[in-house]
């Protein structure tokens, strides 16, 4: 080794050692796992969710963190596959990460929920908490409920109740077509739609009730033709991600001009794909104020801040902010990251979310109680657009918390 080189190596070693010494912080971060698709057809949805988690985490960390410790999001790719999710969950448990957030796909949610329940029953010493921010199959807080699962989004029945209230007022609709992805969530949406429409508008005939494989359909034109041929006046769909983009595109191309009542027809490329063809025609039911025409200040600032970091992405899941902050609040109240104590602190916890609404985590079934909003796709009076497309969602109606609530069949077993 020549002299200058050895000096250089020495310098590098010294700096590295110095770096090590100074980077040893007084407290380790509180790690929170994020298990969702980061590759494959639904990667866009998962990636945007991850960015929103990081954004919400940064705000908490800047304000001093929780119990003097920083929060750290650990992203794990599950490819929306229940099997992959269980492998990632093993990793989470093995690494001693106490909190798991997951949201995309109720199929995955059931797998994680079951595994977490079994693990926690057998391993009282190192339990994990499953925080579900988006999987809305009602079963998760009804017949399949358990103590270690908390849901921060309104479930499919709560949303469908609000959606069918709006549909009931539209007297022009006589024939309804229901299309969805073939898994627990798509089926839950279809069942709820049939049952609730039957009660609120018995004069509406269901002319189609279609399930297609999730993430496998490349071109929805054949389905659109079928909807047209059935003579439908309106469509209900729970499709999300790539399946929603493709359905919207095919509907535009096929000249299908009927109203769509949806759960997820916005953001992550969907709003851009719908474009001008969907104005005043596409409606969406969600848990948050859409940001237009007059957004609450907190939400508006949050959206602007996020857009600065991610100009192409939207804050399409403010429930991520709710979930993360309610967790942080529960950890603070418990004074520890011990899962048992945090879970106890989360039960019955109240929080004021970005929309300015007071939400409550119901003890009985761990379903967050919240108001529900119905918005319409438009380009009029849009302050916060989606997909940087000039189009966005505008508030049409709001169902208050006590009206949006649904009974639960959950018989919660609490650890003794």
């Amino acid at each position, binding site marked *: 080794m020549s002299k200058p080189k050895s000096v250089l190596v020495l310098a590098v070693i010294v700096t590295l050692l110095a770096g090590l010494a100074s980077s040893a912080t007084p407290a380790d971060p509180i790690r929170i796992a994020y298990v969702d698709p980061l590759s494959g057809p639904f990667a*866009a949805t998962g990636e945007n969710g991850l960015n929103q988690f990081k954004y919400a985490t940064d705000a908490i960390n800047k304000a001093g963190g929780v119990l003097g410790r920083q929060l750290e999001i650990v992203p794990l790719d599950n490819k929306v596959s229940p099997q992959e999710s269980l492998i990632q969950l093993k990793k989470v448990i093995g690494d001693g990460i106490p909190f798991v957030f997951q949201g995309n796909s109720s199929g995955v949610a059931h797998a994680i929920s079951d595994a977490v329940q079994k693990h926690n029953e057998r391993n009282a010493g190192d339990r994990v908490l499953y925080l579900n921010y988006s999987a809305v199959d009602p079963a998760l807080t009804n017949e399949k409920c358990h103590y270690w699962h908390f849901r921060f989004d309104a479930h499919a029945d709560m949303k469908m109740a609000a959606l069918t209230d709006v549909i009931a007022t539209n007297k022009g609709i006589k024939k309804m077509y229901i299309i969805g992805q073939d898994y627990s969530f798509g089926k839950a949406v279809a069942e709820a739609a049939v049952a609730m429409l039957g009660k609120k508008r018995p004069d509406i005939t269901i002319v189609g009730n279609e399930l297609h494989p999730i993430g*496998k359909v490349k*071109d929805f034109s*054949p389905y659109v033709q079928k909807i047209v041929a059935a003579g439908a006046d309106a469509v209900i769909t729970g499709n999300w991600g790539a399946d929603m983009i493709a359905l919207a595109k095919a509907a535009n191309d096929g000249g299908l001009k009927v109203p769509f009542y949806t759960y997820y027809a916005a953001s992550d*490329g969907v709003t851009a794909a719908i474009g001008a063809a969907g104005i005043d025609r596409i409606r969406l039911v969600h848990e948050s104020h859409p940001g237009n025409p007059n957004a609450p200040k907190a939400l508006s600032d949050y959206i602007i801040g996020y857009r600065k970091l991610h100009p192409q992405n939207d804050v399409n899941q403010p429930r991520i902010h709710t979930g993360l902050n309610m967790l942080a609040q529960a950890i603070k109240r418990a004074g520890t990251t011990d899962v048992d104590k945090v879970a106890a602190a989360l039960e019955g916890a109240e929080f004021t979310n970005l929309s300015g609404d007071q939400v409550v985590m119901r003890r009985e079934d761990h379903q967050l109680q919240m108001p529900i909003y119905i918005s319409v796709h438009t380009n009029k009076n849009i302050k916060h657009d989606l997909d940087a497309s000039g189009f966005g969602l505008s508030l049409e109606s709001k169902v208050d918390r006590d009206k949006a609530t649904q009974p639960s069949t959950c018989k919660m077993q609490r650890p003794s």
Partner: protein
Amino acid sequence: MFQLIFFSLLNGLVYGMLLFMLSSGLTLIFGMMGVLNFAHASFYMLGAYFAFTLGLHIGFWPALVIAPVLVGLLGALVERQGLRRVHGFGHIAELIFTFGVAILIEEVVQLVWGRPAKSYQVPVLLDFPLFRVMSSSFPAYKAFMLVVAVAIFAFIFVILTRTRAGLIIQASLTHPGMVAMLGHNVPRVFMVVFGIGSALAALAGVIAGPVLGTFPGMAQVLGSIVFVVVVIGGLGSLTGAFVASLLIGIVQTFAVAMDVSVGGALAAVGVHVNPGSALHDLWKVTIAQVAPILPYVLLVLMLIVRPTGLFGTRET
């Protein structure tokens, strides 16, 4: 009913022709090198992304030509610098190499363009309904897709069967040793075919991107179905790829329109299945629900009944 059949037929044709553009290159490459090119659908994806980016600067029409040429050159480079070196180590090495290239391309696409879907739009010139039949319309862009695909088929067919270059390519498929003896540069023929195959896939991507969506998962979504086409048509057979593409396109489109289930069909002839029986759920499944897996059912049947495929000459 007429409306449904008519539009299903048209949609089936468009989808089938799109599959053909992808599978024609793949089947030629397989015929020649004896290797299933896993990266083929990735070139399709690259075509869509290149055209999207080029389209922002120079418009759709120049991009329609330039993007496939760029991807074709990239394909030729992959063959020349990668596949040819790996060739000496046997088929397994080649297979793994193309698999690696596919993963690499997907990751690079995610790095460069990000994960969210790109808003790659149909050109304004073609963004209108071509005609209306009763309450549905047929977009002009889909007619354009059909025309391009038919033109490609005619082009390849004429080149392969009517020109001297085609003669050499066909000979290289079956008797590479003999062709080399006659003084032709067989490795170069391979490189050119690989490049053209990649360019065709890219062209399919350019015109499918606005309709089927431009996102990093697009290669994966279409990749498996293209292999089905190639196997059903017969490995290495262009006619086979053409027939199989149309067959799958039309079968899949029509299947979606059919709400018939096994239980329903049995009920029609007077046999009623007990709702409590274990198989009840199976009987309730409609043809529409299984439409997307029908091609794979067809694949399995084909491998059992006729392993050479419809027009193939060798066992798969």
